[in-house]
């Protein structure tokens, strides 16, 4: 049994936590794994092929119950825990983060520890994403419009982007608000685009950049580019790094009197 499995099994059998959320080998690639008994932990793995952001499960009371939970964490999951805690969705100390440092299992019980680890392990945009982003930004406005309308045409409104996003935890999403019906619930280019604009705007300054929305999309719309681009804008305009658990409030619920306003006459 791996050290990670042993650690998770120990936490469960000691009764420190009632649930360990981790990853196991699935039928194709890795997948989330829920361990409620020590023996469930035998198949746990944690490596760079673990791409689902399992931090999203932490806000689901039906899964978590009221006790302590452990989660085996990639950097994206750690960022999620930090951001969710800053948004008062998790109680600091209620989630134990298990990470790997080489072969050793690290157990982090506080946000400060996680933040320290994250600061020591910065993740930059991949070269592929940088290239795609600059390619799109170099296009004319009309070309960008055509690009996105073509993409939005593919959308089937399955909301896998929303369901897979660890920061989309509203009980009632804006698309389900129907008095008035802000966003048309059917799949059509305009309502698909309105949905994405809303989803992305609601991620402003909160997106942890895990790319879960993008990978979940069954029709392969490059959704990550929207949040990456927005995070860049926010960094430039307000100097705030997205999804880092900013304790001064989220970007859109805070302000500075001297924020730039070069577009306002």
């Amino acid at each position, binding site marked *: 049994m791996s050290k990670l499995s042993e650690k998770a099994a120990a936490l469960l059998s000691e009764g420190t936590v009632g649930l360990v959320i981790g990853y196991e080998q699935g039928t194709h690639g890795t997948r989330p794994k829920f361990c409620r008994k020590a023996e469930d932990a035998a198949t746990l793995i944690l490596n760079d092929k673990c791409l689902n952001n399992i931090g999203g499960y932490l806000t689901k009371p039906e899964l978590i119950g009221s006790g302590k939970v452990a989660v085996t964490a990639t950097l994206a999951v750690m960022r999620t825990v930090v951001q969710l805690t800053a948004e008062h969705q998790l109680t600091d100390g209620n989630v134990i983060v298990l990470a790997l440092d080489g072969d050793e299992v690290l157990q982090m019980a506080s946000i400060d520890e996680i933040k320290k680890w994250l600061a020591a392990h910065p993740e930059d945009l991949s070269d592929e994403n940088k290239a795609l982003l600059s390619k799109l930004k170099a296009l004319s406005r*009309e070309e960008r419009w055509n690009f996105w309308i073509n993409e939005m045409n593919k959308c089937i409104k399955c909301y896998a982007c929303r369901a897979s996003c660890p920061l989309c935890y509203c009980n009632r999403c804006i698309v389900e608000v129907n008095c008035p019906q802000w966003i048309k619930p059917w799949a059509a*280019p305009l309502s698909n685009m309105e949905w994405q604009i809303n989803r992305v*705007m609601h991620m402003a300054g909160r997106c942890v950049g895990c790319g879960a929305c993008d990978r979940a999309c069954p029709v392969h719309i490059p959704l990550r580019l929207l949040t990456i681009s927005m995070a860049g804008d926010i960094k430039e305009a307000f100097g705030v790094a997205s999804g880092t658990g900013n304790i001064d409030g989220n970007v859109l619920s805070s302000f500075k009197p001297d924020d730039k306003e070069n*577009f306002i006459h």
Partner: protein
Amino acid sequence: MSETNQEFEPRIVAFVCNWCTYAGADLAGTSRLKYATNVKIVRFPCTGRIDFMLLLKAFEEGADGIIVSGCHPNDCHYTSGNFHARRRWTVFRGLLDFMGIDVRRIHFTWVSAAEGAKWADIVNETVADIRALGPYDEYKSIASNFEKEAAK
């Protein structure tokens, strides 16, 4: 569209704050200032209340241009509504531009209750800009129908 740009009368929707720009527009009227008649004004309690979806809905329903106007920084009736709005518009504009929506069609301004003349100028400038850009058919074309897509 058979209209040429000379004949084209832009449809502009203005989302304005009750405490400043709305009163400023009133002042423009009582001062007998003449300015373009293309604007339909929608009054809000504060720019902080202007949801970005309202702007998208305006385009969907046929607007060619939009004005968003509120109180100068530090003059907000509710202290900070315009500061919050300013951040929202900064992020929103960036996202719209990235998606290829024409942000030149949205004019953001601060117009106080005393600035009737500025309001008249803003409207005239906006109408002239939008007249030069032409109707926003690009947006309307995707707003109209979806069953055609399915049948195509």
